[in-house]
């Protein structure tokens, strides 16, 4: 009998909730059409700002900058051998590059160890990072210019080299949520 008594108010509250949700919009996630920020990448912070004019090194010592990747959506990941969460996520970033890397998208994984290539290359080799090119920033100029404060930090730039968002902390970058997020930027980057 109490159930019956409660049934009507409960139904009322439910209907009201549905109406409120419809009016206000579903909480979380969707700020732009179709962009979902959830699961592995739930801490991804969307925010536009110009990409810095900074340089880092290739494994062979060549200079490289964001401009070299113009036309592609670029995911810059900073890692170091001393950073356990970086080491943890690096294999997933390697798989991400294998899955999504190409004409429209590339991962740029930059190692910031002071020891440079001598430290980073064998380490990457042990982790079987074979789909990613080795990039180095032993003096920290690029990481500083990109405003990196914690490790790992991953910054996404659009085809024009404009920052569209960043994630501080680790993630499984080949998870469906991460792939969906990056595909959204690929499809919505003019």
């Amino acid at each position, binding site marked *: 009998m109490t159930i019956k008594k409660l049934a009507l108010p409960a139904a009322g509250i439910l209907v009201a909730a549905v109406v409120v949700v419809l009016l206000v919009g579903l909480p979380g996630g969707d700020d732009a059409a179709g962009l979902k920020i959830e699961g592995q990448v739930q801490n991804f912070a969307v925010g536009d700002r110009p990409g810095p004019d900074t340089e880092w090194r290739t494994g062979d010592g060549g200079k490289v900058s964001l401009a070299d990747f113009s036309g592609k959506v670029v995911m810059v990941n900073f890692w170091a051998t001393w950073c356990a969460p970086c*080491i943890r996520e690096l294999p997933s970033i390697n798989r991400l590059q294998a899955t999504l890397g190409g004409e429209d998208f590339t991962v740029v994984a930059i190692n910031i160890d002071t020891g440079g290539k001598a430290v980073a290359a*064998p380490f990457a080799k042990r982790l079987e990072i*074979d789909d*990613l090119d080795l990039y180095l920033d032993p003096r920290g100029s690029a990481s500083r210019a990109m405003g990196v*404060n*914690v490790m790992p930090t991953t910054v996404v730039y659009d085809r024009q080299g404009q920052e569209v968002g960043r994630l501080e902390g680790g993630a499984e970058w080949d998870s469906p949520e991460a792939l969906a997020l990056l595909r959204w930027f690929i499809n919505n980057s003019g």
Partner: protein
Amino acid sequence: MKTESSILRWGRWALSPALRTLSAGVVGASILSSPASAQDAASPWVTYDQGRARLVSATQNAAGDLLLGLQYQIAPGWEVYWRSPGDAGFPTTIDWTGSENLDEPILQWPRPHRFQIFEIETFGYQDEVVLPIAARQARQDEAVALRAAVNFLTCREICVPHTLSMAFDLPAAGTDGPVISEFAPLINTYRAQIPPRDGGRGLTVERAEVVNANGGQLLQVVARSDVPFSAPDVYVEGPDVFSFAAPTFRLSENGRRAVLQASVSRTALAGNDGPVLLGSDLTLTLVDGERAVEQTLATTLGQAESAAFLPFAAILALALLGGLILNVMPCVLPVLSIKLLGVVSHGGGERGPVRRSFLASAAGIVFAFLVLAGALAGFRAGGAAVGWGIQFQQPLFIVVMTVLITLFAANMWGLFEIRLPAWLGGGVGGVSNNPHSASGSFASGVFATILATPCSAPFLGTAIGFALARGPVEIFSIFLALGLGMAAPFLLVAAIPHLATKLPRPGRWMLVVKKVLALALVGTAVWLLSVFAFQVSLEAAYFLAAMMVVVVAVLFVRPRLPARVRPVAVAAVVLLAVGSFAAPQLGQAVSQEAAGDESIWQPFEPDAIPQLVADGKVVFVDVTAEWCITCQVNKKLVLTRGASRTLLASPNVVAMRADWTSPDEGIARYLASFGRFGIPFNVVYGPVAPNGLSLPELLKERVVIDTFRQAAGSDLLANDS
């Protein structure tokens, strides 16, 4: 996580080391101009987003020796690293630039804890720690100015490097002498947690051994404690290229002895010519609860003390099964067949004799295994290198076996009327009219067991290796299980004699079966001769073969001789048999080069392997022996054909063959280093597997190819050239 990272976003950490140094310089300089009050005997707290830190002093003034401390108060869940951070992280370092009147500050390290960050082993501190700093006042009558740029990393789900500047002054003590500060107890509490070097606290590391097991390496640490261990752990510091997993431990001797095993991996492939773990110095911090000691010692080659891989019960079951399978192995089959023939002759027999006969055979088998166990345990206690099938390395043993087999064959062929080994049971040279006498059956059980040994490797290698690595109790238990396994069919017939009486009745066909079995025995004798030829010399083998032919011939003509000459024939057979024992004297092992066309094989030089691997070669080691049937099977079916052969012959591969046909201490030790005591044994070394990947006893081409690929590795980092 979310709140954590949004808080962190407000931080102003200098990330790159260059920037860290820069900011340290700037901030340090600003603090220099306004040092903290000296009376505090501490610098002000420097707060960072995951905690705070300061410098403290055990004295309010400076009087010669200084005892300082770097005090961290760390936010929950965050870690600051030990002097060896483990597989990721970096330790605190202090740059004392700008300090005055300060000599030789040395950072010291209290006992850390083991933390797993994302399954990565790290060592460090949480919540609170004081790193003691021993230093000296350079000039006695002057104040000390402490200026520290403290560089450290703190990690939780993310890592944040920091450089903090701390400063304060200590006035000269003058004639008053040192005045203890409020921080002295705190610093001393943590100083007491610094693991003393080389023992103390009732803890000792007895030895550190490198054990090759399951295709990888284990570091095995044997430690003792005055009071029982609770949960011992060992933190290993050695050449950078090695990474040590968290160890498993096993306690014995009422918990006062611990064996810890940690698997070893190489952290970097840059230096394949880099250090080898065996023989390198390791600093071990042995930790048990609140107690810890530090010892530096060189690793030695060891044997897996607790094969933590299979529980004892599983090993016993394996031994039981292995014993059962032995019945159908080629070495034993003739003996078993003869036994079955005996059953057939019992075709219409009564149950009693059948039961007794089979029980006796089973007892013989079990007895023989126990004798073997006793011998092995004895040898082992005596420190001898023990290997399974080792008796086949003794030429005299082979002569005995050859003579026995030949007589056995002649008997089966019907040349004479001793049912072998009746000489064991029915009196010397006498004729046992009851071949199924208890003693005869017992002897045939013993005989079958001895013949079984060389066939046992593929099924029993694990169990026997395990037994030999353990104490006498394990050896006897496992050999008992082996014996019971092999005796199982006999026991079955003994339990249900009905089975035996169901067999067909004796008849002419039995004579045919007997001759076939006689041929099988001749085959076994020829195999023994080939072992003998390889081991001693071809001439010796021919001599032995000739003796046997004459024995058979004498036995053949004996019934045709006049009755009074027959005893002479018997004497001749005995003489010939005894004379055969001279065979080993004929020519000593000169047959090593009998390898024939197998030019790809190089002699076994374990010491040369690291260099070859460093040069980018893949090294294949085959430990083999003429008496090892499984080895011959591997050779014929895998190593000398198809892709394996191509692999072995390729220029980048060095094939080494270790011949264990004759006893060899070096090879025995080499096997032991992998926890093996029997052969066949094959290992592949390569740039990715400098410590070697061992192959299963029975080789398959697929496995050989895969292991080669695994050991050789492949190009991993695209632009790393």
